[in-house]
């Protein structure tokens, strides 16, 4: 009935588009907040370095926004092009947050344009800062609304399905589904965290490359501090997410944790590999899974033995879970050491080696974002709407998906190269030292 190849290529293409889009989307959600904080600190401390920081971040941000917008448009349309049956069904229940997301995006687009072109027109810095508030709100809320759509796919509710027909639709109930609070919080906070570490790694890179300017040190300290705060928040929300999974999506948690037998006092497995159904070389943390799942070391955790085989997600999501958690913990630790070390004046945090670790922090955070999304999405297989519609029944029947996959792969390659080339050129050709000198000559503003 279903065209198997179309299904496979539709999955590839959706995964490719989303994986590419979330890099830009995450930065798009987090960076406006960082810009706002930098400008606010600059006004508060009357320190032009922070204002310049906001200005330079904005310049780079525009490039990422542009790619974020076009890839976002792509995934928005691909939802209907590749998964028409899914959209036909789900559109009845979940159109509201999709619609609201475009409003948030609209709001952000308008004010970002105004903010960028009024640096030299609105001379009162406080008034100019006000323009960033709608940008940051718009950016965060588009993440909130689109994550609500995704949460609905994991925990559909707000309708009754009678003989394949949807009745008694309640759009608000669909939005307030059980997966929503943890998902939205996790997505927004990790976006802030990732953006902070990405910006930190840029500052650290300048320091590694020999600049000793106080500007970079201020930037690094500010972003690492923010990164630490958001990393702590991420860890706490991650724990809530585990409890959500245990209650509503036990198959995802069990697959991610290789928890085969339902048992009490369940241990948490870190790392290791599967060999013929046997877990090898894993680190076992006693009781930890029971604590993660229910907040009680003696609690019973449902294992894969309770899940029928055709509803079991692929087991490789365990590796993705490991990657995500390990990177999160590592960045939490790294930023904590940096913060304490800077305040206490440890020489360790001023070494080149330590700065290199921070340089790698940004890319690692992005890898963690990718791993986390792959885990949550693959962990929902074989469902596209958990318990309602299987992925195989949602795909398009068109014959041309493979060609489109090729076309889009080419597009994303070009966009990735373009972004990297433009961003490096932009900042290499106009280093901070140069810009500060130019400004001194021309006066501030």
């Amino acid at each position, binding site marked *: 009935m279903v065209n198997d190849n179309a299904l496979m290529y539709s999955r590839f293409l959706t995964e490719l588009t989303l994986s590419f889009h979330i890099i830009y989307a995450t930065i798009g959600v987090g960076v406006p907040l960082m810009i706002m904080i930098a400008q606010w600190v600059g006004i508060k401390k009357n320190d032009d370095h922070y204002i310049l920081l906001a200005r330079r971040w904005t*310049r780079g941000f525009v*490039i990422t926004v*542009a*790619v974020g*917008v*076009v890839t976002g*448009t*792509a995934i*928005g349309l691909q939802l*209907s*092009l*590749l*998964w*028409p*049956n899914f*959209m*036909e069904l789900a*559109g*009845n*229940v979940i*159109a*509201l947050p*999709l*619609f*609201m*997301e*475009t*409003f948030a*995006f*609209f*709001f952000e*687009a*308008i*004010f*970002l*344009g*105004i903010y*960028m*072109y*009024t640096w030299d*027109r609105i001379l009162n810095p406080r008034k100019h800062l006000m323009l960033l508030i*709608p940008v940051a709100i718009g950016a965060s809320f588009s993440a909130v609304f689109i994550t609500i759509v995704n949460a609905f796919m994991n925990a559909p509710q707000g309708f009754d399905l009678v003989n394949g027909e*949807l009745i008694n*639709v309640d*759009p*608000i109930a669909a939005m307030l589904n059980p997966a929503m609070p943890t998902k939205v919080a996790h997505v927004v906070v990790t976006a802030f965290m990732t953006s902070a570490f990405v910006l930190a790694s840029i500052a650290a890179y300048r320091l590694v490359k020999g600049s000793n300017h106080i500007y970079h040190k201020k930037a690094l300290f500010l972003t690492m501090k923010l990164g630490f705060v958001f990393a702590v928040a991420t860890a706490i929300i991650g724990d809530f997410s585990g409890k959500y999974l245990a209650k509503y999506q036990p198959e995802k948690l069990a697959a991610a944790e290789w928890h085969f037998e339902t048992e009490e006092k369940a241990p948490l497995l870190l790392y290791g590999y599967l060999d013929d159904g046997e877990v090898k070389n894993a680190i076992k943390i006693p009781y930890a899974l029971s604590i993660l799942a229910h907040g009680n070391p003696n609690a019973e955790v449902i294992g894969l033995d309770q899940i029928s085989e055709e509803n079991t997600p692929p087991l490789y999501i365990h590796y993705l879970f490991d990657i995500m958690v390990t990177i999160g913990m590592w960045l939490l630790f790294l930023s904590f050491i940096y913060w304490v070390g800077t305040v206490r004046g440890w020489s360790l945090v001023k070494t080149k080696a330590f700065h290199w670790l921070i340089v790698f922090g940004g890319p690692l955070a992005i890898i963690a974002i990718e791993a986390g999304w792959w885990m949550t999405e693959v962990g929902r297989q074989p469902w596209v709407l958990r318990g309602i519609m299987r992925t195989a029944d949602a795909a*398009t*029947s*068109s014959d041309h998906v493979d*060609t*489109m996959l090729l*076309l*889009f792969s080419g*597009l994303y390659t070009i*966009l990735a190269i*373009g*972004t990297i080339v*433009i*961003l490096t*050129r932009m900042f290499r050709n106009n280093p901070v030292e140069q810009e500060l000198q130019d400004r001194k000559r021309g006066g501030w503003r």
Partner: protein
Amino acid sequence: MSLEIIGITVLWTFLFGYVIVASIDFGAGFFNAYSQFTGKEHILNKIIQRYLSPVWEVTNVFLVFFFVGIIGFFPKTAFYYGTTLLVPVSIAIILLAIRGSYYAFETYGTKGHRGYSFMYGLAGLFLPAALSVVLTISEGGFVFLVDGKPVLDYWGLFTSPLTWSIVVLSVAAVLYISAVFLTWYARKAKDWQATKAMRKYALIWAGPLMISAGGIVYELSFHNEAHFNRMMELWWIFGLSFLLFLGTVWLIWNRIKYGLAVILLIGQFALAFYGYGFSHYPYLLYPHLTLYDSFTNEAMAIALITAFIAGLALLLPSLYLLLRLFLFNQNYVQGRTK
């Protein structure tokens, strides 16, 4: 008025907004590339950059708004149009992506790369063609149901004179709308050379616009007779639209009141666009899909309309602020403030 009609009117209005702002954008990109090609880039470049920079992102939102809205109000369109439009819409997405990203790369990154602006200009001409295919398909005759699944007849589509008339119309409309708007904008900027160039383009593209529009009406008379007859019932709307068109051309020809010319232009397209939309009623895809059998449930429709009103309350003042700062601000338009 029924919820269905409110829904489609809202969406049609956003699509109209997109047609106008995107036309200005696409056409500007083309004229910019063309002026570089002929070695006259200094004439148009500044005007176009100054207008486009703060608004390019907003333009895109109009399109997103329309396609998210249509899935929301009419979920069955996802089934029919989603399945059949994979190729043309994917091509449009890729062109949009190239345009959007290269615009940002060029404007904020490295300046003045010729290759970029050619791609930008060309993509702007192919885009209306790729997007207008949707209009052709909606007239019926190109989508067939095979085993209950919609299949697009590509060969029929590519060999149909209707397709090509609509493509020509969309390209001519893009260049005409853009030229009229930019004539006004350049005039406001007191950039006489640019005004002169754009005025010439506006007059050049007025002819093809009317010829292709007439061609489509003729094609429809035998391609989709029902639609043609409904259009004839609404002849006075199209007649009025034609009068406004004559008004715009007259004003531009006599070099007076360019602002009024833009208003008449928008009026002309609004009348033609809504007239076309009304005459298409009640079909979304002739003859498979009507407004009524694809409409979402009542609870969602009411929620969407509520969200829409709340959103507009937020958007309209913001849009007004944007226009006031960048379109109606004499100092900005003339380049005295950055």
